[in-house]
């Protein structure tokens, strides 16, 4: 009799405690949701873990792809969207949205040619475009030899690797090729998926990395982090200023610094082929998209606080994942944009 009384009462206390703690948590923490680009997913999840530890607010980010992120924010089902492609000014105005960059990443040409060490190959935009157009088919083509007089290049076919899935990486890469080659612009153009004149498609950065590793004499493009983690041979690039640059965090940041953000309304600017002397030519960012007049004021406030935290204290976390934090000058511009464009 005694035990049977004791047990329910204990359960009762437990249930009460659980209910109280649940109630307590929902009372103080705000859960905000975001969706979109898979490019920023690793860094946003790292930031949000650190941010949750500090403030108790959770950021629930779904990496469903940029297209999906734009659709979700337009439908108003998430607090912020993230896209690898900036929205046009008229699109933003139509839905009352604003956008700003969140983090920078680099895209690097990666290759696998025996006897040619990582970082010893130099390419430039027009050559890269001709290789992807299928006009340059051999590694010892005069155009490549001219850029690499001291490297011994084999007389074998170049196996071109590209992404098979639609991606922001492809969008920035093809945008770069369109800027440096009129032929590419008229024949192929730019987009998250394009009609590739040649080559094989790997699914995701990991698919492209695997193909490059396995196929001798291959050339592809991957996000910087994948080239580093998979120890792929990367190529140096001749940039718009004519200097040969290495893909490093410094050269990505140089591209972000020299890009003409001041004259870009709503940060609608792609950093590819940036003019700076030290700028890496295929540098990319992704954009956070939010309503200018918040649908849910409390959530939006937390979202702004989260991105402020990411810009100011999330820099090491970004670098640890081979992303590049935004330069201070750009962060200032973004914060000015927040106070002028957003009703907080």
């Amino acid at each position: 009799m005694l035990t049977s009384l004791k047990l329910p009462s204990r359960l009762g206390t437990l249930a009460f405690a659980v209910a109280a703690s649940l109630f307590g948590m929902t009372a103080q923490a705000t859960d905000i949701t975001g969706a979109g680009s898979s490019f920023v997913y690793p860094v946003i999840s790292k930031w949000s873990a650190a941010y949750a530890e500090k403030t108790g607010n959770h950021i629930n980010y779904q990496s469903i792809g940029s297209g999906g992120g734009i659709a979700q924010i337009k439908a108003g089902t998430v607090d912020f969207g993230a896209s690898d492609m900036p929205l046009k000014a008229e699109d933003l105005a139509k839905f009352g949205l604003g956008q700003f960059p969140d983090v920078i990443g680099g895209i690097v040409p990666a290759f696998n040619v025996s006897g040619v060490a990582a970082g010893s190959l130099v390419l430039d935009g027009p050559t890269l475009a001709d290789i992807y157009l299928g006009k340059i088919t051999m590694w010892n083509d005069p155009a490549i030899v001219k850029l690499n007089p001291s490297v011994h290049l084999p007389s074998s076919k170049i196996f071109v690797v590209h992404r098979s899935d639609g991606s922001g990486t492809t969008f920035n890469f093809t945008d770069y090729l369109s800027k440096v080659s009129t032929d590419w612009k008229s024949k192929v153009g730019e987009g998250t998926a394009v009609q590739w004149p040649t080559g094989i498609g790997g699914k995701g950065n990991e698919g492209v990395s695997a193909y490059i590793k396995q196929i001798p004499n291959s050339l592809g493009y991957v996000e910087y982090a994948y080239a580093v983690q998979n120890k792929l041979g990367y190529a140096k690039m001749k940039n718009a200023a004519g200097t040969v640059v290495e893909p490093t965090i410094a050269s990505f940041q140089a591209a972000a610094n020299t890009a003409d953000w001041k004259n870009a309304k709503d940060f609608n600017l792609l950093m590819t082929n940036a003019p700076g002397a030290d700028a890496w030519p295929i540098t990319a960012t992704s954009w956070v998209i939010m309503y200018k007049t918040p649908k849910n004021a409390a959530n939006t406030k937390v979202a702004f606080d989260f991105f402020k935290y990411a810009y100011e204290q999330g820099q090491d976390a970004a670098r640890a994942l081979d992303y590049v934090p935004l330069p201070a000058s750009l962060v200032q511009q973004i914060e000015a944009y927040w106070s002028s464009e957003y009703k907080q």
Partner: protein
Amino acid sequence: MSATSAEPIPRDTEHRSRTDARHDLFFRFLLRFCAMLVLAALLGAALSTLWGGREVLFKDGFRFLFSSDWNPVENQFGALAPIVGTLVTSLIALLLAVPVSFGIALFLTEIAPRWMRGPVSAAIELLAAIPSIIYGMWGLFVFVPFMASIEPTLSDTLGNIPVIGALFQGPPLGLGLLTAGIVLAVMILPFISSVMREVFQTVPARLKESSYALGSTTWEVVWDIVLPYTRSAVIGGIFLGLGRALGETMAVTFVLGNSYNLTASLLMPGTSISSSIANEFNEAVGMHRSALIALGFLLFVVTFIVLLIARFMLRQLQRKEGR
């Protein structure tokens, strides 16, 4: 006395038979509803993919079906390359998997010693339980390098034979239609062989024993007794495997090479309906999304046609046998 006591009994049976009839009716409706639910789901899925893909399907007549142009930038879409890729890889898979499955089933039911049957059939059924992404990873990291190492020999030998030589020419990438077909063959093998094994076991022992008594060899018993007895079930098993091969996505995406350029060679990369959808759906908007949904509808159509051919073949067989 007997009349008064007999009177309530017929009323009771009448009542019972009326409730029974009602229950029967209710049960019949329930069953019919269950069957209709499947039909409605199928029809709903087919119609919604047709509706989602209407912008592309009915643009410029049936250009979508016969064009190999797939250009998301210009919004030009043609499904020929994915359709060809799907059919070719599934056909290779069937050509390889059917004879091997037949051999396995034959061995396990007629030849293998009793102690071996259990473990071997369990191993084959375990093959069916492996998720397709695992086949994809295995294909990409283990099988593709192996194919790349034997492809030069393939194109030097088979590539020189007149007509079929064109099928085996190309760079030794290791990726492509042939590799995808072989990986698919391994994937559908357990389905076909376990169906064959099950139905071979249903052949009455007295039929086989009579045949052996007349002096038949094991091969003659299998070919003339077992196979004709189980023919329709065997064909059913083969088409079960084919259905799986047509719709397989992830494993194919990893080893097919994902290229929309149509070529004659099996060693060149291609694409399939399901892998195109899996690759591009995430980032597709507008017409591009519509084209991918239309591809989904085409997969319905292709599968339906294949099943129709299977039914037709079965009917022809039955007619020949005079059933």
